[in-house]
């Protein structure tokens, strides 16, 4: 089933008004074709989380357009989110805040299934798909570790059978060994369910392992874009080079990167 294409043209977002206004996102173009995994990399404060929130309609635009399958995405007001936009779902950074502490895991995944536009597996199917035991459905979030909670959050997002899954720094709060496992889990789950994935992170090394194309963002602009291997091996932009050089390498040779 053909997914929908997400298109960003000259997207601009500003915080605050008048003299104190801060331009978090300055004219970003981005394309997320169906079935593609796009990595968006940048340091804190570069505007990547703001961009993610703008795509979900959580952040009003100061300029530019975001369209899903050609139709513009309005900001999410106080009313219920329009059905066609339910095809964009998000996984958040902090696993300890992305699940309602007072509701069972199964009920929260059911929230997603209720709005699914395409046939989707049962709660236990979804849990198994994110490598969790089906019995987790009857338990409460505080009984799980950070990694497990993030898997549950992925299951909840996929329960809505989205065409587009956005990961807003989904691995930043996890332990190093878990980070690449959860990142590749998101990639596999998205591909298996015909969803495209926009994976946002400050960790270029992990993004490189899962993304087809990589965009590097700095102070609100996209400074580099290209196939993952090319950006990794032959960065054009000096900032990308600095980012790459700063990655600590576990080779035991006692050399400080950068």
């Amino acid at each position, binding site marked *: 089933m053909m997914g929908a294409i997400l298109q960003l043209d000259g997207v601009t977002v500003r*915080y605050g008004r008048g003299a104190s206004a801060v331009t*978090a996102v300055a004219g970003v173009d981005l394309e997320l074709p169906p079935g593609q995994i796009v990595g968006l990399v940048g340091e804190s404060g570069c505007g990547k*989380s*703001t961009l993610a929130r703008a795509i979900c309609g959580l952040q009003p635009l100061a300029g530019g357009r975001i369209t899903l399958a050609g139709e513009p995405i309005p900001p999410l007001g106080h009313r219920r989110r329009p059905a066609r936009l339910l095809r964009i779902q998000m996984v958040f950074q902090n696993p300890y805040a992305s699940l309602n502490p007072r509701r069972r895991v199964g009920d929260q995944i059911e929230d997603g299934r209720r709005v699914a536009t395409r046939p989707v597996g049962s709660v236990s199917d979804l849990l198994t798909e994110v490598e969790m035991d089906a019995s987790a459905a009857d338990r409460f979030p505080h009984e799980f570790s950070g990694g497990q909670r993030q898997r549950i959050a992925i299951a909840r997002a996929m329960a809505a059978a989205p065409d587009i899954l956005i990961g807003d720094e989904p691995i930043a709060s996890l332990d190093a060994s878990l980070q690449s496992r959860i990142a590749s889990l998101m990639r596999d789950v998205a591909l298996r369910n015909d969803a495209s994935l926009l994976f946002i992170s400050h960790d270029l090394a992990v993004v490189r392992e899962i993304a087809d194309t990589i965009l590097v963002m700095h102070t609100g602009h996209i400074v580099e874009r290209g196939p993952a291997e090319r950006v990794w091996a032959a960065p054009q932009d000096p900032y990308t080079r600095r980012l790459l050089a700063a990655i600590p390498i576990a080779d035991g040779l006692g050399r400080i990167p950068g």
Partner: protein
Amino acid sequence: MSHSSSSQHAEPAVADALPGSARSTRTSWFARPVVRYIGIRGLVSAVLLLGVTIVTFILTNLVPVSPITAALGEQAASDPATVAKFVHDAGLDKPAIVQYFVYLGKLLHGDLGTSIQTRNPVTQDLGQAFPATAELALCVILISIILGLGLGLIAAVRKDRFSDQLIRMVSLIGISVPTFWLAAAIYFLFFFVLRWAPGSGRLSPAATPPPRVTGMYTVDSLLSGQFTTFLDAVTHLALPTLTLTLFTVGMLVRFSRTAILDVLNQDYVRAARAKGLATNRVLFGYVVRGSIAPILTIVGLAFGSLLSGTVLTEQVFAWGGLGQYAYRASTALDLPSVMGVGLLVGAIYIITNFIIDVVYGFVDPRVRIG
């Protein structure tokens, strides 16, 4: 009477704000962040003051006993002609907005109407009564701050140990005591039974008040060197101060304990300890310095509840201040006086909180330098 601190707007977390850069150029004084901060706080306080007048205006007109019968008396009120003339003269036929501005105009000229009880203009009564309450309130707030913050600090530092439990229990009892009953109990015990303190009033009946400078007997007697009067005034201050201090300290201890506990958990306190500084330096140099903002807010709140307390206790000590005036006014349903006290006490409270905001502006470098 417990209030949480004044509301701070939760600005949208600017997660992606660009990192701040060090600012070097000297800016002219009016553009300095602290002046802008005080300006805004000043504006808010002015609007609040206006709001207070609106509240009292609405309440005066809400009176079930219509002002007409009150002014003309039952019999005359039945004659439509006199009523129409009175309504016209008093401008009661004009729209509410106009009546309000007339009311505001009178306020600005210090005309708060006439007290039904004393037949004097309310402003004159308030002017007469204000210094007595001011003297008592200042005395109480000074003692309460020292005691309250001191005990709050001890309770926070020795969290869950015996002294903390004791301080918390006593302060909880402190805020649970009905102040109007406490005043009577203290007066009965220390004057009536034990004779440790002199009777009611601000001076012994025989003593003559010192030449009026501030209207506060303790200050005026010191200024004019009359030490016997000073001593007399201080001993008379003892019981009302004790009454109000118990309640105010109870409140200050509870709030400051929580505020200091929060600061004690901050990283910069642990960092200070990691530097091997002496405990006192860590406590007063870092912990107290770090909790100044919430403590200033707490002092503002405590001052507010202290003003409330005077209304319920001055009568017992025949203190002759705003509190007693308010007590007599409310028991006799003397509305102009009640409104007058409401306005004045409201204004005092707003101005005090404004002063506290200004002090905070200078204390916190993030506001002063921005």
